[in-house]
């Protein structure tokens, strides 16, 4: 049975004291492999019985969740009960310390009977959940009488203030916080020259996610799309195929080194297999690290997450092996003029090109030199 542990934004951006449990569950170390074809091979003949087994197991889990599930009941005033889950529980406790609370620890399959009993034990039962109305709709579908939040609180994050407003059924406009200073590419960041050039050449830029997403903000404003990791290449190719030729010719895909190894390679295969009539230009911004998330290694650096030497995916070799004939490596800081001429030439050639703009991230450069020095010894 697959299990999803859903961790929302604020949980990932918070720290607090945690008491470690006493139950230790060691990672399974099977003595040997056991064949079990019907359970693991989802050909049609085995898939249908597997589907039946899954529904039966889910019904058992729902029953378990009702009786012994990881749900917490806090007694409180009979006039107000709150059904909640996740970090919203903390906001609810702060906003309504007198209320009875049912905190649902496992939200699928839901402990519907437990929720029904709880809702029946209080005069008014309100569901406090962040984002889309999942719990409140499931409760409503099951015939449980609960109230949800007003539509305005569906958008953005909750906090104890907003939960107070929800409980008071207050839908007057909320106070707006003054906007802060947006982040920007570091002074001396190697991506800066690339965006300056793309702006000068009036390119249509299919972008991707990383520090270099900041190319969308002033002073560059040189990124036209950002969807998900690896989409730079697929979206760029789609634009090349669909736009009028004069505009299609200006489309460039921009993707960082770690994003490229994560999910850009399939896009490159597609580019070779279904080349747009006007060709295409993919720029890999190779700064030698995963800068945005904290300088982690990736398969293109040739070092493990612990910085030990390991196999290295060489982007230029990979691109050539797929059949891209125009593959170039250039240093965007040492040779900005060369980079500009190169991008212009690639755009005009109407062929498939991969340009690797390679220069280590300023914040990682010192550490990278140190790792390389250690490996040489």
């Amino acid at each position, binding site marked *: 049975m697959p299990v999803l542990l859903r961790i929302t934004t*604020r949980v990932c*951006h*918070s*720290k*607090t*004291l945690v008491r470690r449990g006493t139950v230790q569950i060691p990672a399974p170390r099977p003595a040997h492999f056991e064949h079990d074809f019907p359970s693991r091979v989802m050909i049609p003949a085995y898939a249908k019985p597997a589907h039946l087994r899954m529904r039966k197991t889910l019904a058992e889990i729902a029953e378990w969740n009702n009786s012994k599930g990881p749900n917490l009941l806090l007694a409180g005033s009979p006039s107000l009960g709150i059904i909640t889950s996740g*970090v919203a529980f*903390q*906001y609810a*406790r*702060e906003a309504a310390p007198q209320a009875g609370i049912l905190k649902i620890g496992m939200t699928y399959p839901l402990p519907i009977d437990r929720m029904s009993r709880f809702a029946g034990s209080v005069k008014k039962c309100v569901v406090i959940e962040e984002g889309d109305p999942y719990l409140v709709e499931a409760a409503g579908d099951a015939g449980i009488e609960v109230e949800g939040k007003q539509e305005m609180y569906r958008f953005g994050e909750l*906090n*104890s*203030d907003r939960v107070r407003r929800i409980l008071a059924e207050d839908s007057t406009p909320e*106070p707006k*916080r*003054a*906007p*802060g*200073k*947006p*982040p*920007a*590419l*570091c002074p001396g960041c190697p991506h800066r020259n690339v965006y300056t050039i793309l702006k000068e050449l009036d390119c249509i830029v299919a972008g991707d996610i990383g*520090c270099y997403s*900041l190319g969308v903000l002033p002073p560059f404003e040189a990124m036209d799309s950002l969807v998900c990791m690896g989409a730079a290449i697929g979206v760029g190719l789609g634009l090349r195929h669909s736009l009028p030729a004069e505009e299609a010719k200006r489309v460039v895909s921009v993707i960082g080194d770690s994003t490229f190894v994560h999910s850009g390679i399939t896009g490159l295969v597609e580019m070779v297999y279904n080349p747009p009539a006007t060709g295409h230009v993919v720029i890999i911004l190779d700064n030698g690290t995963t800068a*945005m998330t904290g300088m982690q290694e990736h398969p293109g650096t040739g070092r493990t997450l612990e910085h030990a030497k390991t196999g290295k995916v060489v982007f230029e070799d990979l691109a050539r092996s797929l059949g891209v004939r125009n593959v170039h490596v250039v240093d965007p800081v040492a040779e900005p003029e060369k980079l500009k001429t190169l991008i212009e030439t690639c755009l005009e050639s109407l062929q498939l090109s991969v340009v690797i703009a390679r220069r280590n991230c300023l*914040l990682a450069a010192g550490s990278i030199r140190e790792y390389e020095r250690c490996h040489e010894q």
Partner: protein
Amino acid sequence: MSSKPTNVVIAGLGGQGVIKASDILADVAFSAGVDVKKSELHGMSQRGGSVSSDVRFGERVYSPMVPEGEADFLVVIAPDQIAVNQSVLRAGGILIEPSMIDESKLTTKKSVNVALLGVLSHHLDFPVDAWTAALKRNLPEKLHEANLISFSIGRNQ
């Protein structure tokens, strides 16, 4: 300690050590044995944008975020970030900002965050030893001396 938590918001720009300062404060509260939660908005914290971090401690803390208008202390490392964050401070709450210290006395300008923690420490009940220990736990050894000096400059204002 009362049942209502003490609320501190630390704010500044990426690279100024906002998160580090909040880690140190949370560590001090932790070592004092009280409940503590912290939350941070670090978008891209080394990319120069606005950064802020909430630290709440007391007998019992629920939400990790300081509600609007309920901060007891607002520590701002970048003067241009005061206006942006002012609304989080409660009436009578205390603003701590760089003009309160003589920056020329600091061994390194990078330790303004720690100097302002020094100013904050003056208003809180934690013993100075707890601050010293937390500073040492959260900073590399080569930075200990400069930061301990900065801390005492702030504390003795």
